[in-house]
Structure formats: C-alpha cells, structure tokens
C-alpha cells in the first residue's frame, strides 16, 4: 500500500507539473483538492485521465470523484480495492 501511495505522489507531481513539490511534501492523509497543494477541479480531471490511462480506472461521476480524491490515501485505497476486485 505504501508503495502505491508513493507511486501516486510521484505521478501527481508529474501530471500536474507541481513546482518545488517532492513526494515527501505530500501528506497522504491531507485534503488533496483545495488543500495546500493548490489543486482544483481541472487538476482532478487531469488526474482522472491519468488514472484511466495508467490504472484502467474510469471515474465519471462527481460523487465518486469527491470520495476518491479526498486524499492520496483514499485514492490509493480505491485503486487497491479496484485492482484486487479485478484480479478476483
């Protein structure tokens, strides 16, 4: 799980071109959107595209998005369950 969290942090930084942010700066339990990183709805859409491309996850409703993007930990948790659900 920690591996996935770190991987996501790196991908978030790359995808959103976050200047001067390193994975260690991102608190996986902190609010991801509208928090200290200054991310907004456009960033969410960019992350949605990344998740679909790199993890095969489709997130096409706002309600789902709000839940998944609550924090990096929530995102990792969702992906983890999605992937294990797929392999079962």
């Amino acid at each position: 799980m920690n591996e996935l969290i770190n991987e996501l942090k790196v991908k978030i930084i790359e995808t959103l071109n976050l200047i001067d942010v390193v994975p260690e700066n991102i608190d996986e339990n902190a609010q991801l959107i509208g928090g200290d990183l200054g991310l907004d709805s456009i960033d969410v859409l960019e992350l949605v595209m990344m998740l679909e491309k790199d993890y095969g996850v489709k997130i096409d409703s706002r309600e789902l998005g709000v839940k998944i993007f609550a924090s990096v930990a929530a995102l990792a948790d969702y992906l983890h369950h999605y992937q294990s659900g797929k392999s079962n």
Partner: protein
Amino acid sequence: MGIISPVGCGIRDTIKAIRNATPGIKPLRLFPTAHTAPLPVGEISSLSCIEDVPRTHTLARIAAEEAMKDARNAPDAVVIGVTTGGMPVTEELLKNGILDPEKYKYHSTGSVAAYVARFVGCKGPVLTVSTACSSGAVALKIAMEMLRSGKAKQVMAGGVDALCRLTYYGFHALQLVDETGAHPFDRKRRGMSVGEGAAMLLLTVAESPPDNALAELLGAGLSCDAYHPAAPHPMGEGALRAMKEALFDARISPADIDYIHLHGTGTIDNDLAEARAIHTLFRDRPIPPLSSQKGAIGHSLAAAGAVGAVVSAISITNGIIPANTGFHEPDPLLHLLPPVEPLQAKINAVLANSFGFGGNNAVLVLGHPHRRKRSPTSIRPVRPLPLAVLGSACFTGAGNAKRTMERLGQGEGARGIVPSLEILKPLSEKYVRRLKRLCRMVLSLAVSACEDNEKTDPPSAVYFGTGWGGMSETYDFLSKLYASDEQFTSPTDFIGSVHNAAAGHVAIRFQSTGPNVTTTGDDCSFEQALYSASLLSHDRNAPLLVIGADEHHDTLSHLFDASVAQGEFPADGGGALYLRPATSESPLQICPSFIAYSGENGNTISELINTLGGAKRINDQFGAILAGIPAAQREKGEAQLNSFLSMTGYPHPIIDYRQFVGEFASASAVAAVLAVSFAHAGEIPAHICFPRAAPLRGRGILVLGFGSHITAVEIMP
C-alpha cells in the same frame, strides 16, 4: 438573416423545426471514434463542402449567402465569431502526418471572416472574434457599436463553428458531455452535446427600422467572470452583470422582456449559474417564459450567440417560444420551468444569453422592429476615439522592452524566440504551472505593463489579439489524443487551446470584470483588438489592457503562418498597452484610425490617406512611419506602401519593423509599444533609422500594416 443548424438549413426550415420541436441530436457520424460508442452531437448531415475550404468556412458561407439574399449592396464591415477555423482539416492532416504548409492555408480563424468578406464583397473592416462560446454574441456587440459610431452603415455579423475532434474530445475530457444527449435545466442533466452551425445577420442602422427589418438589436452587454478558466462563477455574477448591462444598453427594464433565450448548455454548473443570475435579475418580479434550444440542436460553440440572435428574431416575428427539448424533470435548485412544447406568444423583446470559457459573457437584447415604444437612440460621435497610454511592455527575442531598445540601439536586431526565463520573471512559477508559453507571455506582458501604475485602478477590460492562439496546447492536445489512439488527452490543454484563454487569465489576475475580447484576425489581430477596445470603451475612469502576442511553435508555426515559413529566423513576442479613454490633456495617445480588408481593392490606400486627414496632415503630424509587411505578402504590401508614399510624398523616415522584430502575427503589437517608447524619447534611434537618429520634433508616429488587411494606428505625443 441566414442560419444553418442540425435541424435545418435556412430561416424557413428553422421556423418549421422550431414549430415542430424537431430533435437534431444524434450519435456522431462525421468521423470514426476508435474505442467508444459515438457520443450524441448536433451534427449537420448531408453537408457537401464548397470548393476546397474546411467545413467551418462552408457553414459560414451558407449562412452569409442567405443573409445577403435581398441585400442590394455589400456590407461595409464583417464581424465573425469563430473558434474552430480550419481545425476540421488541420487535425486530419496532423493525424496523417501531412506537413505541407500549403494544405494549412485555411487554418486560421481569420481566414473564415476573410472568406466571407470575399464572398459578400466587403472592403471595409473584417474582424474575427474568438471568445469561445460567446464569440457570436460578442461579434454582434462589436458590429452594433460600429453602426452606432457611424463607422459603418451596414455590417454582416454572426458566428460559426464546425464539429471537429478538438471540441468533441475536449469537452468529453472535461466530463461536460451528457452521454444521453443534452437535457438543459433538467434535474438529471449531465452535460452538453457538442454541435455545429452558423448564423449571420445583416445589420443596418436607421432612425426608424426599414419596413423589411426582421428584428431590432436593441442592446448588448459584455462581462467577464474573472473567476475560473473553464467554470462559470457559481452564483452567476458575471452572467448577471452582462444581462444588466445589456438591458441598460437597450434602455429597457427586466419587466419589458417577454422571453429569455437561455444559454442553457445542459452542464450542471452552467445551468445553475444561469438560473441563479436570472433569479437575482428578476428578484420578486415574475420571470418571463424561457428556454434553451441546445437540447434540440446541441451547442454550436462560437455560432451559439448568433444562432440565439436569429432564433430570438424568429420568436419575435413568428410569436413563438421554442421548446426546451430534453427537459423532463424540474430541478428544485434551478427553480425554473422551461416549456417542453413550443408556445405561442406575443413577443416584443427577448434577452438572449451566451457564456463561454474564460468566464466570457455576452448578452443580447432583441426587439420587435415596429412595436417598440421608441426612445431616441442617438448615433454617437464618429469613433474610434483615442486612448491615453498609461503603461506598456513588450517581448522580443532580445527580452523585455528595455533589452529590446538596448539591442536595437546597438544596431542588432531583436528578432528571435523570447527567452522563457524572461517571460517568467514577473510571474510566480507556481501560479502559472498549468499555463503554457502563450498564456505565460500574455500574463507577463499584462503584469509588466501595469506595474508602474500602482496608483491607478487595475484594468477593468482586456482586449487581446493573437494570430494563432495557444499553439502549444493545441498541438499537445492532438498529439496526446493521437498517441493514445484517440483514447486519452489532456483537459488542461483543451482549456488552454481556446484563443481567449490568455485574456481570461489576465482577467482573473486583475479581477477585470468588464469586456474581455479576443480577436484573431491573422496579421492584424492586435489592431483588431485595439479597434474593438476603442469602440467599446466609454468610461473615462475605467483603464483597460490591449495586448497582442503570438508564440513560436516548432511544428505548427511554419505550417500555419506563411510569413513564418518564409522567414529566416524563428521569432515570437508581443506587446501590451495599459490604456484609458483619452481626454484632451492626455499626454500620449494611441488611436486605431483605419482598418480595412484590402482584397483586390485598389482604392484602399486612398481611403487610408483620406481617413488619416490627407497628405498634408500625415506629413505634418507624423515624424516616422513603422510599416508592417508580412513576409508572405511582401510584393503586395510593398506595392501598397509605395502607392501610399507616392500619393502623400511622405518626407520622414519609414521603418520596416518586421526586419527588426521578426515574423509573427502580432509583431505590430511590438511595433506599437516601440512607437510609444520612441515618442517618449522624442526620436527614432540610430541603426533603426539609418544612418542617424531622427528627431520627431513633437510629431507623432504612424504604425501602418499592409497586405490583405490595411491598418493605421496613430501614436500622438
């Protein structure tokens, strides 16, 4: 009037479609979609392209042809709102790796207006407005101001856009498309249906409307949310300001409105913001019937505002309120009940909304041509009025204005690519992390132009001219799309690819909530922005920004811009002027005196000279001419300049400025900023003006543009 939409070609068919509430949204057929079922769109079926022009041009011509059907004379001006331009062809070429510049000759949005101008025989100003989904309505506002100012007696104005991958996949990436088709104002709405279409209106000005008038354009209001690049202000504050402004401009009150033609895209946020704005506008008064047509025809983007105007006129003349197709279940949050069937009603006045990316709002008020209680609408003094210069900034290959002047003073040219670090200097990199080259350049220019004026109010309006818009975003969007076999792309790049993205960012930065106009008229985009600014700026206490800029793109610049293809060195840059309407005491003034599409017209030069006040005034008042001749139009432009010189016997220095700043569409913005610097200094420096510096002796400078458009900008000390 002329119109083509998914439910009909021509006014007659459109009236029939409105009466029958004909549905026009069907799964996309125009191009194959690789991995997903085609989404529902508003596509015009069985459209055969005319000649070898792109779909956008064809649609524009069909609507223009109908609008001109009973016209005796060519219009004095053409103003067209468009965002897709030649994109339907361009994206196909790029997809297939075809990199022959000749094949991209109709790429520019400006080429649509020029194509219409040639078709209708217009030899006056030909302007292109690109403010995303409000373009058509903004074009109508500018046309109306041209008529009110006495600058034109008849103007062809409207909007057009054609379906293409850029918009189809772009809105989908933003999750703004309803996979079941648009249901505007419905509780279960999930988004829009991307569409296409064209609508053109032939406008004329008269003390009383002519007998054959179909409707009267009573007023229009422009505003900017200055809130977010792609989402509306949640309370609809910008929309409300534009509606109030339009009603004020029309000199009527909300109670006079009989029908509201909604923007109503069907997205969750648009419909909510629009509903809130309407509730605030009417407060406790009853809200008139209202409907959105986008559930029937989709969202035709830049055409939508003009389509709305034509439909509003049809409502007035035929006493019909169009159905809000797709509406089933009221949304308690919106608290509005649009009709599901067309209604019969006597309609004297319509409020028609258009809102777009960049928080760009434009609202029109149309009235019955013969039923209104007439209040005198006087034609104002002949404009364009001069604007006073409060600040300026420019970028060239040398860097900022100071570095540019130094380099020119040393006898070295300033042409080249603007250093990226130079652009970033006045900006916080964190703040602009999502912005690419053009947006950064424009924001940086805006900040620099305003920085010495902390005591003056921030700019309330933004006017931006760009030949090509954000090429980096457009290219990256399509590259990612094609690299993933049309599965994935970047929503951020789509938002940045709209031509008015940069002006929207400037508005957010300065909280500029007034008009936000982007003009994209090829090599005179900057002059068109300045001209629009001069037409629309009435408030002496409201400063404004006029900016012109273009980026160099390694792949696209030489494909799109024939002058870049011919130039030896890649170059880009831009200029920004911080202005306010001038008073007689204003020390340094700028005035866009002349703008005309030259076409094959041989008389434009004598009209230019007359407009400038004749040879004597030109020779007495202007100590130098900065002449802009794009490389691709050298022969034609030089002939025009020579004809100007022989007709005036002009005795002072003439500077061919593209030799110093390079070949890019908005090079004239740099020229205007340099002219301001020269006027300040009181001389044209040596090296630019061979062999020695030329004192201006209190005279001004004339910035002239030659080629397919002829322009004149006066800079007076």
